[in-house]
C-alpha cells in the first residue's frame, strides 16, 4: 500500500514537472512533503541518510561551484574570448561557429553548462547582429557543444554530479572514462556542423568592420582579479583530481574553493550569493526526498529486481538499454530528475555485476546516455531552455522544432558513437 502511494505521488509530481504546468520547485516540495507526511520516508532519513535522503554531497558541490562561477563570470573573460574569436574569424561563418563552439566546449567541463551558455549566448547575439547574420545556428551549435563538453567531467553536468556521488566515482574516473569519448564526439561534431548548418551560413564582408570595432580588452576591467580567479579555479580542478588521494569529498573541495575565491576576489558576499541558483538547490533537495520515498517503500528495489531478471547476466544488453533508454527519456524530460530516479536502480544492477569493471561500465553507459540525451530536444536540459530564452528575448527566436531537428541528429550520432565506445572499451 505504501509503495503504491509513494509511486502515485511520484508519478503525479513527475507529470507536473514534465509538462511544466506548475513551477517544478513547488511540485517537488509538495511531493517531498507528502512523502514525509504519509510516513513513506522517516524524517531522520530525509536529512541524515546519504543514500535514502538528501544527498548533501551533490547539494554542496553545486553550491560551491555556483559561487565559484558567480565570481568568474564577473571577470569578463567570456566576452573577451568570444569577441577575440569573432575578430580572428573575420566574420567567416564556419570559422566563427567552430571558435565559439570550442570556447563553450572547453569551458563546460569546468563550469556548469547553464552558466557557460549564459556567458556565451549574449555575446554571440551581439556578434551576429553586428555581422547581420541569424544568431540561431550559432546559439544551437553552442548549446550542443556545451552538453557534449559538459559530459567530460564530474562537475560538467548535473547528471554527472548525481551519478558520481551515488556511484562513488571520482573526478579522475570521469576524466579517464568519459573525456576520451567526449573529445571524439566533439571533434566529429565540429566537422559535422559544416554540413548540418550549411544552409544557414551567411557572409557579409562589408559588416566585418562593425565586429572589429568591438574592444575586447575593455571587457576585462581587472586583469589581476581575472588572474587570481583563474589560479583558484585551476587549484580547485587540481584538488578535484586529487580528492581520492587527499580523502576529501568533491563537495568539500568546491566549498573550500568557493571560500578561497571569495577571499581572493574580495567580492561582496551578498552580491555573490545572489548569483547562487537557490531554486535549483531546493529542487534537488526535494527531488532526493521524492526518490528516497520510492527507495524506502521498496519501489526502486522492485524495479531493480525486474531489471536484473530481464537482463540476467547480459550486461552488454543492460548497458545498451541504459545508454539508449536514458538518451531517449533524457531527451524528452529534464535529465536531472530522470537521473536522480534511475541512479538507485542502476546502483542495484551494478551491485549484481560479476566484477567492478562491468558494474562501472553500466554507470558510464548511463551517464553518456543521460548527458548526450540532453541535446535531444529544446527542453531536454536546463542549458537548452536558458539559451533559447535569452535568444527569444534578444529577438532571435529558436522554435522547439528548429532546435530539435538539429538536436535529434546530433544526439543519435553521439549516442551511436558512445555505444560503440562502451562496447569496445568494456565488453570486447
Amino acid at each position, binding site marked *: 500500500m505504501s509503495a503504491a502511494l509513494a509511486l502515485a505521488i511520484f508519478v503525479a509530481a513527475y507529470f507536473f514537472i514534465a509538462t511544466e504546468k506548475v513551477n517544478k520547485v513547488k511540485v517537488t516540495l509538495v511531493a517531498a512533503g507528502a512523502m514525509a507526511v504519509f510516513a513513506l520516508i522517516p524524517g531522520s532519513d530525509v536529512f541524515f541518510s546519504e543514500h535514502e535522503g538528501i544527498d548533501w554531497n551533490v547539494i554542496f558541490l553545486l553550491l560551491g561551484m555556483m559561487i565559484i562561477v558567480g565570481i568568474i563570470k564577473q571577470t*569578463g573573460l567570456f566576452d573577451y574570448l568570444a569577441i577575440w574569436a569573432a575578430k580572428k574569424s573575420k566574420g567567416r561563418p564556419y570559422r566563427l561557429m567552430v571558435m565559439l563552439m570550442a570556447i563553450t566546449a572547453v569551458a563546460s567541463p569546468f563550469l556548469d553548462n547553464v552558466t557557460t551558455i549564459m556567458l556565451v549566448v*549574449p555575446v554571440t*547575439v551581439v556578434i551576429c547582429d553586428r555581422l547581420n547574420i541569424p544568431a540561431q545556428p550559432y546559439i544551437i551549435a553552442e548549446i550542443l557543444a556545451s552538453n557534449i563538453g559538459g559530459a567530460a567531467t564530474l562537475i560538467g553536468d548535473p547528471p554527472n554530479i548525481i551519478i558520481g556521488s551515488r556511484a562513488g566515482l571520482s573526478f579522475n574516473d570521469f576524466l579517464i572514462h568519459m573525456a576520451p569519448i567526449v573529445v571524439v564526439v566533439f571533434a566529429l561534431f565540429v566537422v559535422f556542423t559544416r554540413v548540418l548548418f550549411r544552409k544557414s551560413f551567411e557572409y557579409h564582408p562589408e559588416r566585418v568592420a562593425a565586429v572589429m570595432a568591438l574592444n575586447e580588452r*575593455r571587457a*576585462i*576591467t581587472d586583469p589581476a582579479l581575472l588572474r587570481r580567479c583563474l589560479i583558484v579555479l585551476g587549484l580547485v580542478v587540481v584538488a578535484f583530481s586529487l580528492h581520492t588521494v587527499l580523502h576529501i569529498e568533491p563537495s568539500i573541495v568546491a566549498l573550500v574553493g568557493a571560500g578561497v575565491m571569495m577571499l581572493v576576489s574580495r567580492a561582496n558576499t551578498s552580491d555573490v550569493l545572489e548569483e547562487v541558483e537557490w531554486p535549483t538547490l531546493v529542487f534537488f533537495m526535494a527531488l532526493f526526498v521524492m526518490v528516497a520515498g520510492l527507495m524506502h517503500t521498496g519501489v526502486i528495489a522492485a524495479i531493480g529486481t525486474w531489471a536484473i531478471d530481464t537482463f540476467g547476466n547480459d550486461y552488454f544488453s543492460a548497458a545498451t538499454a541504459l545508454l539508449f533508454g536514458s538518451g531517449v527519456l533524457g531527451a524528452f524530460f529534464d535529465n536531472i530528475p530522470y537521473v536522480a530516479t534511475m541512479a538507485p536502480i542502476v546502483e542495484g544492477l551494478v551491485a549484481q555485476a560479476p566484477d567492478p569493471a562491468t558494474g562501472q561500465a553500466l554507470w558510464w553507459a548511463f551517464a553518456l546516455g543521460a548527458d548526450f540525451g540532453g541535446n535531444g530536444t529544446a527542453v531536454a536540459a536546463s542549458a537548452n531552455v536558458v539559451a533559447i530564452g535569452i535568444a*527569444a*528575448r534578444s529577438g532571435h527566436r529558436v522554435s522547439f522544432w528548429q532546435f530539435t531537428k538539429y538536436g535529434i541528429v546530433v544526439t543519435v550520432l553521439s549516442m551511436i558513437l558512445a555505444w560503440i565506445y562502451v562496447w569496445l572499451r568494456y565488453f570486447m
Partner: protein
Amino acid sequence: MQARDIAVNLPTVTADDPVTKAVRVMAVGRLPGLIVVDDAGRPRTVLPGTQVLRLAIPESYQADPALCRAVDESHADLFWQELGNLTVGDCLPSQPARPVLVQPDANLLEVAALMARLRSPLVAVIDRDGTLIGAITLARLLTSLAVVGPGD
C-alpha cells in the same frame, strides 16, 4: 485619506505593444513608471521607470556589464535601435514581479510602505475584480501627504 482619493488616470500599455511605444508613453507623460495591463484591463505588472528602461536594453547586455564596456561609443549611443519590433511581452522577464497593487480603501501609510518595500514609484489601484481604476505616483503620494500634514 484613502488610495481612491489620490488615484489618477495614467496611460497604460499591453504586452503586445512595442517596447518603443512603452518608452515613448513614459517619456511623453513624464511618468515614473508604467502599468502593463492584460486584455481585460487588469494590471499584469507594474514597472518602475528603471525597469521600463531595462525593457529598452537588449537582453544580451542586461546581465553583462563586461559586454557593455566592450561596445564602441558609436554603437553604444544607438543600443535602443536594436530592439526592432520586440514587444513589451517579449522583454518582460519570464516570471515578472507581482504587480504592485492596492485596494481603493488602502490608507496612505499602506501605499507608502508598499512603494518603499517594493521600490516602486508607481502603485496600481484595483477594484474587487482586479480591474485597474487608477494609479498613484510617488510625486502624487508625497504631495498628498504634505497637504494633509501639519504646516511648518
